[in-house]
């Protein structure tokens, strides 16, 4: 038995087993559950890195469940795959790396953040389930399996959003809102999957991609999938759940929820690029995605400026940053059918959009963690009640400056690298879009200057005399994210060339995706 061949499934199976064991172990000793969850997520982070090295050097990997060999995609001479399989290409593993890193750091941060709560075992169990479902959404090659993982993600996140308690009221309201939104989106996804199954009798994404015709039914399915997944990703006309859910969840969960909404974003890209590709009207669908992005960018940031609650403000910024990803990838999609424009600026725009996904997960995670650190010590999220905290919390202040500079797109940090890629390439497509993106970036800077001033600067306040620096595990999680932000900012070329470019190419080249399952069709 060679465990190395089973890395794609072990990445999910180890946290899943731990998630189910934790309630039993929690009956004996509650304190060990946190350490156990952290170890499981650490193991799955290591395995993800090993798998990433394999995918990027060898090529896309498949893993077929329950078959005699994990590589046998077409058993008994069939023309189409019948078993559930994982299909991991450069784009999937790119998202997998984000998920693994963010959830591991979230678990480490939670060790100190939730020290005295009595329901700690169910917290870690749900955190592991959420991580597993995100991995599943990113790795799966089967549309129905994607729906199952989407449902698991929704259920786990709803309970985690309400984790702070039913007595407080607000977390439960946020959780209920998210439950309604995610139930609707999951049912609509199921409806779209039903359309595909009725039309083509297959559920495998690659198999659908090889026969899809862009008929009237396919158009309906595409519309449903793009709109409900954009809803789960928090794009603007459907963004009402985001501020509530992000601000009421515990800080490490908010960080993981950001990655979970990006998994939905990934699903949009996967469906549009790998399933439909050039069969669809790329210009029209591209513009729809661009307009979704523009709305998210602009409305998100203008709503953020007026917020007084620090986590709510950051949640609106999360919406606004999602817009950048949609803009970059939307421009890439709009010129997909035009090889010259694609080569000229389309690929660069997509690189910017995809690179921004990772950057956003890192700096927005860091910002939410600093907000959590402030809440941990001061007990409030209201910016008007804070002040002078830089005197007491030196590390948190430095981490906040790094995160704020990165989200505003200041040069030595990673936000600048991806935003510059987007500005330059989108300018060639349509100058106006680029100008709007820059204005949004400036507004982002303005609102974070406000947060920095009202939370950290000013004289020492008497009510915060007892405040001191947060515990070590929280500092560790924030420090790791800060190091990654600075590293990505200093060497963006390294990341774009080795991680982002293969991911973009695996999206654009549909045959590479279908070929791994169906052979050289």
């Amino acid at each position, binding site marked *: 038995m060679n465990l190395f061949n089973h890395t794609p499934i072990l990445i999910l199976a180890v946290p*899943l087993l731990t998630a189910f064991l934790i309630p*039993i172990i929690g009956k004996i000793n509650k304190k060990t559950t946190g350490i156990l969850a952290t170890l499981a997520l650490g193991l799955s982070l290591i395995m993800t890195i090993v798998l990433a090295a394999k995918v990027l050097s060898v090529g896309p990997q498949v893993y077929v469940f*329950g078959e005699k060999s994990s590589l046998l995609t077409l058993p008994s001479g069939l023309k189409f795959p019948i078993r559930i399989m994982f299909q991991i290409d450069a784009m999937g593993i790119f998202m997998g790396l984000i998920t693994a890193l963010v959830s591991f750091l979230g678990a480490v941060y939670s060790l100190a953040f939730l020290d005295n709560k009595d329901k700690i075992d169910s917290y870690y169990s749900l955190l592991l389930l959420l991580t597993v479902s995100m991995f599943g959404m990113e790795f799966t090659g089967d549309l129905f399996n994607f729906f199952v993982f989407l449902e698991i993600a929704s259920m786990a996140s709803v309970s985690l959003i309400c984790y702070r308690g039913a007595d407080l009221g607000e977390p439960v309201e946020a959780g209920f809102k998210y439950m309604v939104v995610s139930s609707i989106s999951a049912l609509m996804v199921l409806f779209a999957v039903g359309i595909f199954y009725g039309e083509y009798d297959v559920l495998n994404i690659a198999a659908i991609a090889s026969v899809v015709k862009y008929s009237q039914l396919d158009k309906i399915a595409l519309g449903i999938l793009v709109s409900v997944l954009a809803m789960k990703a928090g794009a603007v006309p459907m963004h009402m759940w985001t501020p509530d859910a992000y601000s009421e969840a515990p800080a490490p969960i908010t960080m993981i929820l950001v990655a979970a909404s990006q998994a939905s974003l990934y699903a949009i890209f996967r469906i549009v690029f790998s399933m439909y590709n050039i069969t669809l009207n790329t210009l029209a669908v591209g513009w729809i995605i661009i307009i979704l992005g523009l709305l998210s960018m602009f409305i998100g940031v203008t709503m953020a400026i007026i917020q007084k609650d620090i986590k709510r403000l950051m949640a609106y910024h999360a919406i606004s940053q999602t817009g950048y990803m949609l803009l970059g990838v939307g421009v890439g999609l709009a010129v997909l059918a035009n090889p010259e424009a694609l080569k000229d600026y389309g690929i660069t725009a997509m690189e910017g959009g995809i690179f921004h996904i990772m950057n956003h997960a890192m700096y927005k995670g860091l910002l939410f963690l600093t907000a959590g650190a402030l809440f941990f010590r001061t007990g409030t999220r209201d910016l008007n009640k804070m002040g002078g905290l830089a005197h007491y919390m030196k590390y948190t202040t430095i981490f906040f400056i790094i995160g704020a500079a990165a989200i505003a797109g200041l040069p030595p940090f990673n936000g600048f690298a991806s935003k510059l890629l987007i500005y330059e390439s989108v300018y060639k497509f349509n100058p106006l879009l680029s100008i709007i993106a820059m204005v949004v970036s400036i507004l982002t800077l303005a609102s974070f200057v406000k947060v920095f001033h009202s939370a950290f600067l000013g004289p020492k306040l008497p009510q915060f005399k007892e405040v001191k620096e947060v515990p070590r595990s929280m500092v560790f999680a924030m420090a790791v994210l800060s190091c990654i932000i600075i590293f990505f900012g200093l060497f963006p070329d390294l990341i774009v060339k080795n991680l982002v470019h293969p991911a973009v190419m695996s999206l654009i080249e549909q045959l590479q995706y279908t070929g791994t399952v169906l052979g050289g069709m």
Partner: protein
Amino acid sequence: MREMSKIIRNVTNLVYGFIIIFGFYIIVHGHLTPGGGFQGGAVVASAFAAMLISYGQLNTKKFLNINIFSLLESCGLTMFIGVAFLGLGTTFFYNFLANSGSWFGNIVIPGINAGDMNTAGVLPLMNIAVGLEVFSGLGIIVLLMADGAEYTKKKEKAENDR
């Protein structure tokens, strides 16, 4: 929730065991007849719901314990994923027991037959795991909902008294 009349309680006493046995029958025959782990588990949980309705919340708590249910639930889930792990010699979820001649390992006769229980490999094991998980999970849900109803009633009463 108060306890109901004597007729209802006696009928519950009569059917309680039969409902549970029927539920387990559906669970273990999951690979042969319609139904399976989830459906059988739901049938078993309906016995708990009948008990809760007829005997009231406080009396039911003497018989049904949430802690034991949650332990059983975790055991069921761990068993499911554990069986999947055992197939890891070939692939995850591999049906290593089918046609092996040992547990649940008889070869299935094609065509019309009487239905041999001892077939299908790991499927019955997984059905049992799912059944365990579902009846204890639904049991917890039913008990917690009764608790929640009681809590709301108390709160409303306190507000009316004020």
